[in-house]
C-alpha cells in the first residue's frame, strides 16, 4: 500500500512491560513459588501479545484521535476536539451512520430470524436434513473476500446471475453497481448469504439441547403452535438469542472484506461505506489517520454502549 516508510508519532512505544502475573514473594506457602513462576511463564507470551497489539493500540488510538496525524509524517500535532467536531458536522457522517445502521440492523435481524427458522425446519424429521444442514453452513467457512468477489459477478448488472434470472421473469434488473441503495442491498444480501450458517448452527444446537417435555406439557394443555413457540420455546432460547444478538452485531459492524472487494465503499463515494470502512478510507486512502482514529474511537464507544444496553436488557428479561 501507500507510504512505505511510515514513521509513527513522537512518543516512544512501550507496552511490552506487561505486569507479570507473579504473586507476592513466596513467603507464606513457599511450596507454591514454582507454580506462580510457571503460570507467569505460560501466560506471559500471550499477555504480552494482547497488551502490545490489542490494549496498547486501543489507548493509542484514542490519543491519535486528538491529533492531525497523517500516518506517514513523524509529527502528529494535537488538535483537541477538532476531529470530533468535524465528524459531527460533516455531511458524509449522516450517510455513513445511516449505512452502518441499515446494514447492521438488516444483517442481524434477517440472519437471526432466518437462522432460527432454518434451525426449526431442519430440526424436523425430514429426509436428507443432514445434507441440507451442511449446505446451509458451508458458506460460513469460505473467505469473505472470495465470496465478495464472486458475488460481485453474481450481481453484475450486465452479465450477472441476478440480471439473468430477473430478465427471465420479465423484470428489469436494478444497477447494483451504480445505485447506492441497490449497492447496499447487494452487500447486505452477500453478507447474509455467507453468515447465515452461523446463526443457524447455534440455534440448532440450542434446539437440540432444549427440554421437549415442556413443549409436551403445553401441547397437552391445548396451547396453539404459536403460543408454544412464544411462551415455551422462545424463553428457552433466550440465552442463545442474547448471545447471538451480541456476537452477530459485533461481527456485522466490523465487516470490511465484503465491502472492500465489492464496492470500495461506493458508489458515489460513500454509497455503501460503513463506519469501519470510513476508518480505513480516511486513514489509509485519504491519509488522515487522526480523523480515522476519531471515527474508530466513536465506533468503539457506540459498540460498547450498545453491548451494555443489550446486557442490561438481558438481565431485566431474566428477572421478570
Amino acid at each position, binding site marked *: 500500500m501507500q507510504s512505505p516508510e511510515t514513521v509513527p508519532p513522537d512518543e516512544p512505544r512501550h507496552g511490552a512491560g506487561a505486569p507479570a502475573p507473579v504473586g507476592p514473594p513466596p513467603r507464606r506457602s513457599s511450596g507454591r513459588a514454582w507454580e506462580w513462576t510457571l503460570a507467569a511463564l505460560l501466560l506471559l507470551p500471550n499477555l504480552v501479545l494482547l497488551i502490545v497489539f490489542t490494549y496498547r493500540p486501543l489507548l493509542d488510538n484514542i490519543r491519535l484521535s486528538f491529533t492531525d496525524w497523517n500516518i506517514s509524517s513523524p509529527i502528529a500535532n494535537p488538535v483537541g476536539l477538532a476531529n470530533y467536531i468535524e465528524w459531527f458536522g460533516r455531511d458524509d457522517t449522516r450517510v455513513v451512520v445511516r449505512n452502518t445502521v441499515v446494514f447492521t440492523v438488516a444483517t442481524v435481524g434477517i440472519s437471526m430470524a432466518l437462522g432460527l427458522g432454518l434451525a426449526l425446519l431442519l430440526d424436523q424429521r425430514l429426509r436428507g436434513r443432514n445434507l441440507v444442514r451442511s449446505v446451509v453452513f458451508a458458506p460460513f467457512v469460505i473467505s469473505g473476500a472470495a465470496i465478495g468477489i464472486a458475488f460481485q459477478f453474481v450481481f453484475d448488472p450486465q452479465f450477472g446471475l441476478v440480471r439473468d434470472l430477473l430478465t427471465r421473469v420479465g423484470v428489469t434488473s436494478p444497477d447494483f453497481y451504480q445505485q447506492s441503495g441497490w449497492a447496499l442491498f447487494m452487500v447486505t444480501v452477500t453478507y447474509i448469504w455467507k453468515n447465515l450458517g452461523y446463526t443457524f448452527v447455534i440455534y440448532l444446537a440450542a434446539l437440540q*439441547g432444549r427440554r421437549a417435555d415442556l413443549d409436551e406439557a403445553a401441547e397437552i394443555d391445548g396451547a396453539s403452535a404459536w403460543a408454544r413457540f412464544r411462551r415455551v420455546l422462545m424463553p428457552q432460547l433466550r440465552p442463545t438469542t442474547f448471545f447471538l444478538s451480541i*456476537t452477530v452485531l459485533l461481527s456485522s459492524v466490523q465487516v470490511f472484506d465484503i465491502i472492500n472487494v465489492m464496492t470500495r465503499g461506493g458508489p458515489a463515494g460513500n454509497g455503501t461505506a460503513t463506519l469501519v470502512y470510513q476508518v480505513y478510507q480516511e486513514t489509509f486512502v485519504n491519509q488522515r489517520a487522526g480523523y480515522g482514529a476519531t471515527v474508530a474511537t466513536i465506533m468503539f464507544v457506540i459498540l460498547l454502549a450498545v453491548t451494555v444496553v443489550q446486557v442490561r436488557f438481558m438481565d431485566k428479561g431474566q428477572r421478570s
Partner: protein
Amino acid sequence: MSTPAIVGTLDDETTTTPRSRRRRRDDAHGAEAGTHHRGPVWTVLGYAGMVLVVLLVAVPLFWILITSFKERGDIYVRPAQWWPEPATGENYHELTTRIPFFDYVRNSVIITSATSVAKIVLGVLSAYALSLLRFPGRGVVFLVVIAALMVPNQITVISNYALVAQLGWRNTFQGIIIPLAGVAFGTFLMRNQFLNLPGEIIEAARLDGAGPMKLLWRVVLPMSWPTLVAFALITVVNEWNEYLWPFLMSDDETTAPLPVGLTFLQNNDGVTNWGPVMAGTVLAMLPILVLFLFLQRQMIKGLTAGAVKS
C-alpha cells in the same frame, strides 16, 4: 436437566436423545386428531423449504463454477449460458501463469500455519495456567485475556500499522503473523474444557508425582482432544480467511495471502475479465470446503461450545 445438552453437530448419530424424546411425543399424540402436528401439508412445505434453501446456496456457487470454465466471449452474452459450451481450462491456465497464484497460495499456507500453531500453543498454555495452576490474580488475568474479545480489530489497526511500519516489518511475514498471534477466544474455550475435566483424575496424576508439564501433556491434553481439534480447526479457517490485516500489510506476491491476492487480481481484471477472477475464487474456496466436508462436525463443535452453555 438430566439429559446432557447435545451441542454442536449437524449429524443425527449423536442426537438420539432428542430424537427418542420426540418419538415418545409422537407416540403419545400421534393417534389424536393432531391438528397442529405435522400433517402432509407441513411435510410438503418442509421439503419445499429444504429445496429452496439448497438452491439459494448452490445456484450462486454453480454459477461461479461454470463461469470459470467458460471462454471469455461466452461470459459476456445475454441471455446467459447455463453450461460452459465449449468448456475450457483457459481461465485456470491464465490464472496460474499470468498471475503469481501459487505465490499467494504459498503465503497463505505460511501465514495460516504459523499463526495457527502460535495461537494453539499459546491458547493451550494460557488456558492451562488459568484453569489448573493456582496463583494470585488469576481472575484478573483471565478477565484481561477475554476482554480482548470486545476490542474490534478496526480500532487497533491504525496504531498497529504504525508500530509495525516503524519496526520495518511491513510486507514481511512476521509483520503479518505476530500481531495476529495473541489468543483470547481459544484461551476461553480451552479453559472451559480444562475446568470440566474430572478433578479426581487430575489429583490422582498429581499424587503419582506427575509434574505440571507432564500433567498437561499426558493427562489433560489427551482428555481434551475433541475440543482441541475444534479449536484448531476454527483457528485454521479464521486465519486462512483473514483479510484486513494482511491487506494493510502486504504490497505484493512476496507476502500477500490468497484473499489479498484475489483482490489484486480483481483490481486488474475485475469486471472486464471475469473468467480468471472466477477461477481464482473457485480455487480459493475449494481447500476450505474440502476441509469442511471432512471435519464439519469438529468445526461446529468449536463454534457452538462457547455459545450454548449458559
